[in-house]
């Protein structure tokens, strides 16, 4: 096929060695792509919702991850197929943008692809389908805006925020103590939030985990936790009203970058050099002491002698603290990171009310707590749990909850969950479809049908009869003109999501629909897949 003829009629080959390349064209390519996309969605489908199941993933190195976070599953899955990779990207971008709903977005994209396949079989051109989807998605997003509600919260009234985070957490393994974790997440976000600018820098929230204890022992620390201990075992383990010098220079003799040599050729030189060395250490410690520091946190190591001098001068110190942690400490304590001893001044010291070392369990794990900081804008969530997998999963779940809380602070519009928003959109899109002349109408209608897939999957995962439940809820929505009816996943007895307090952020939902549509459009437009054969 990739054969052309030049002006003399001699054949030449456009694509080299085409015999070794697998190539799919036209409808065949689209169908292959769709089936790959669907396969990815099918894997995630069972993880949707509060009763969704987990996946166990074994990494190439043999580590085991148990999770139901869509983004994590796909990332670890080692997908080889190109379209599969697109889906992975899709869930990742939802993760970056919103942080939650990573499973939903893939399931929705899968549903859209499935519907598109039917339309393709009827002979509708893929571009027309794509355009129809585009229109429908715009309709759906507008409708979401329409049914969304503003919800009020303030620093004193965090209950609504906690409720939202609970919805997010309820689908994770940690739902046993979702209330506690949701409160931790909300408090953490509020602590670092800039309510006037409506922005939250999630980097200020550090999530640390340590194996052992119970999930219930997870705590929020208004300060920083560093997985380090004092450099000298006999330094005090508890410092009150600490003044912290944050250094990025080692307590070691200087190592100038330029190449140099010091030649020792006489005994005197040897002596002076030695004295200088001693003085150097002495000076370093003295400078820290002079500015009034009571704790030194250093990014680098200490020489044995310096270490002892510090201990001797009663100046506790911590060494090998990572760069990120150092920055956080600087933010939290209001100190400045000082790159040279000469630059140390009183103002550059950070202040913290209490620094203490805490040990855990029977092993000799110790961590350093820096609390009551001058600027409490940096917080740490410290997770405890039965095993490493549990902690990793809790970290991921908390990340989702934090993102949700952040999104709510950014924009406080919400829609109701439990599939109610999707159903309501589906009804609206379906109704609007009839107004469009042309082939797009079919595509729009299919879009509406695809939206039904999410509540359907929800119902299925909860062990409810999917078609019965979804149709019943849908008719109820139309009859009562109530867009808040959803799937009663937890067997509470009512399917009004407003009463169940199940809601999600508006931007999260909108983003899901937009992202899913975009990817589906992209997949539909592909009509030629060229893969190099195995090498």
């Amino acid at each position, binding site marked *: 096929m990739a054969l052309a003829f030049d002006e003399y009629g001699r054949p030449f080959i456009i694509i080299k060695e085409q015999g070794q390349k697998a190539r799919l064209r036209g409808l065949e390519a689209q169908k*292959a792509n769709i*089936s*790959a996309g669907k*396969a*990815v969605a099918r*894997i995630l489908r*069972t993880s949707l919702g509060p*009763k969704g*199941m*987990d*996946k*166990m*993933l*074994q990494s*190439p*190195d*043999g580590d*085991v991850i*148990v999770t*139901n976070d869509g983004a994590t*599953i796909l990332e*670890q*899955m*080692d*997908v*080889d*197929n190109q379209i599969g990779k697109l889906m992975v990207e899709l869930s990742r971008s939802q993760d970056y943008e919103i942080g939650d709903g990573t499973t939903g977005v893939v399931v929705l994209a899968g549903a859209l692809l499935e519907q598109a396949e039917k339309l393709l079989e009827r002979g509708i051109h893929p571009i027309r389908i794509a355009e129809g989807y585009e229109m429908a998605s715009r309709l759906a997003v507008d409708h979401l805006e329409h049914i969304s509600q503003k919800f009020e919260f303030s620093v004193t009234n965090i209950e609504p925020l906690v409720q939202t985070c609970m919805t997010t957490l309820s689908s994770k*393994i940690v739902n*046993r103590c979702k209330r506690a974790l949701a409160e931790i997440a909300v408090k953490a976000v509020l602590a670092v939030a800039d309510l006037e600018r409506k922005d939250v820098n999630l980097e200020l929230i550090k999530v640390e985990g340590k194996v*052992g204890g119970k*999930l219930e022992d997870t705590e929020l620390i208004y300060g920083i936790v560093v997985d380090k201990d004092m450099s000298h*075992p*006999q330094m005090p383990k508890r410092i009150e009203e600490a003044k912290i010098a944050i250094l990025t220079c080692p307590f070691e*003799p*200087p190592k100038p970058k330029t190449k*140099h*040599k*010091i*030649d*020792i*050729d*006489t*005994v005197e030189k*040897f*002596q002076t*050099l*030695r004295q200088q060395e001693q003085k150097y250490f002495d000076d370093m410690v003295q400078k820290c002491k002079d500015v009034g520091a009571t704790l030194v946190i250093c990014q680098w190591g200490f020489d*044995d002698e310096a*270490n*002892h001098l510090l*201990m*001797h001068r009663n100046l506790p110190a911590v060494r090998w603290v990572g760069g990120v942690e150092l920055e956080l400490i600087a933010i939290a304590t209001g100190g400045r990171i000082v790159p040279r001893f000469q630059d140390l001044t009183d103002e550059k010291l950070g202040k913290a009310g209490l620094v203490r070392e805490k040990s855990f*369990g*029977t092993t*000799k794990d110790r961590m350093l707590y820096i609390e009551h900081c001058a600027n409490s804008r940096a917080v740490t969530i410290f997770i405890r749990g*039965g*095993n490493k*997998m*549990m902690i990793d999963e809790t970290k991921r779940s908390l990340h989702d909850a934090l993102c949700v809380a952040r999104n709510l602070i950014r924009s406080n519009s919400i829609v109701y969950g439990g599939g109610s928003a999707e159903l309501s959109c589906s009804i609206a899109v379906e109704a609007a479809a009839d107004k469009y002349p042309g082939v797009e109408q079919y595509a729009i209608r299919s879009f509406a049908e695809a939206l039904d897939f999410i509540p359907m999957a929800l119902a299925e995962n*909860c062990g409810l009869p999917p078609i019965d439940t979804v149709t019943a809820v849908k008719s109820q929505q139309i009859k009562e003109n109530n867009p808040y009816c959803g799937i009663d996943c937890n067997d509470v007895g009512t399917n009004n999501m407003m009463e169940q307090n199940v809601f999600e952020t508006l931007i999260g939902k909108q983003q899901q629909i937009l992202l899913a549509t975009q990817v589906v459009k992209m997949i539909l437009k592909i009509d030629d897949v060229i893969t190099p054969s195995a090498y």
Partner: protein
Amino acid sequence: MTVERLLKDEATEEKGDRARMASFVGAMAIADLVKTTLGPKGMDKILQSTGRGHNVTVTNDGATILKSLHIDNPAAKVLIDISKVQDDEVGDGTTSVVVLAGELLREAEKLVNKKIHPMTIIAGYRLAAECARNALLQKAKDNKRDPDKFKSDLMKIAMTTLSSKILSQDKEQFAKLAVDAVLRLKGSTNLESIHILKKAGGSLKDSFLDEGFILDKKIGIGQPKHIENAKILVANTAMDTDKVKIYGARVRVDSMAKVAEIEGAEKEKMREKVQKIIAHGVNCFVNRQLIYNFPEELFADAGILAIEHADFEGIERLALVTGGEIASTFDNPESVKLGHCKLIEEIMIGEDKLIHFSGVEMGQACTIVLRGASSHVLDEAERSLHDALCVLSQTVNDSRVLLGGGWPEMVMAKEVDDLARKTPGKKSHAIEAFSHALQAIPTIIADNAGVDSAELISQLRAEHHNDTTNAGIDIISGGVGDMEKLGISESFKVKQGVLLSATEAAEMILRVDEIITCAPRKRENRM
């Protein structure tokens, strides 16, 4: 049209029932593996490493067995992980936690086959675990206020823990050893200050607790072998050639005479350093780093005992014990805190010479010297003793105590059974299953002891119908006995840890409905 291949070449994917089955089978296989080591009459396992030398370990410590296994089944890895955590956190009960999780999954499998949704099972398990924990809380006794009783509690716990180990023959002796050692810590859980020294030779009975501190080092030649009222300087400093630390410095000379001069200066420097150390007024100097012959000679001249190359932990421990500080500079002798002890002497254990510090300032640390016929015995004895020490130190903090011998399991099972009867809905099946799983533990203990478990458990259950019973399995006589009288106790914290971690692990495995295994990373063949 064939479905496109989605995953990489060697990656595998298992779904739904198959995935669940794979994880059940894996988890149960692990549980069955360690099952026979449970209880006082549990058997040991021989582990042979695949590394060079094919080292052999004989143990019945669950965590050690599982750590050494190479497992491919992901669910089994979850179980190994919880046993590790149990080891880190409380130190004992590593086998029980795996066995209980395995039993919970075995029961769950039956329920799944009856078409009960895993989520329902999980909900039931959670309720049951909560209820079981409350039952334990109510029954736990706390004797913290009465020191004598508390100590006897500790003794009982230590003996119960040790009775399933290799030390069971001399459990009384070792229990006393462990209790004494832990009580010296005065509530801290820092087991580092208990030093366990293994010396092959003699028999396990010859093991003893030393109040002082024993350092496995030799005293330098020509130095005093016996010092009373020792003042000890603990240091971490270079005593070989004290290098110039300023970067880029090097010696460059043009004649032999200069070399000699510089060498002289170096020596002078070292001599000065030694003089400074001597100026502290010490008569014992312990360094973490090497001490070369020259300074050693100087020390010997001054009549100071110099000990070189004590490892890092040894140094920290010694500093802790003697109350000195680890010094690296020696310019201010008046402000360096020196360590003190009444007597330093060289002692012989078996064939080896060791240095013994007695009458130390801080009474916290101590050394346990283990003697035994072979290194395998010693290793296992150390593990057993470590378990006992961990449990005891945790008990000192959380002094609630339960009876042992399957008593707590039966108490929990009864409460959980009651709950199952009260709970409507499908969950009650799961709750009932939980109670079955709990009862499996005394059953296994009985089975391992070779007694008629079915008979015994039914008797026990009847006994436990009465709320205040102390009945448990008496392995020695092979019948039901009063645990209180037999003096079999367990720490509340261990039991709680077993219960919670096992439930958590079972839940985690139950929630899985798909296993995706990535292609193993290719290793380069180094042969």
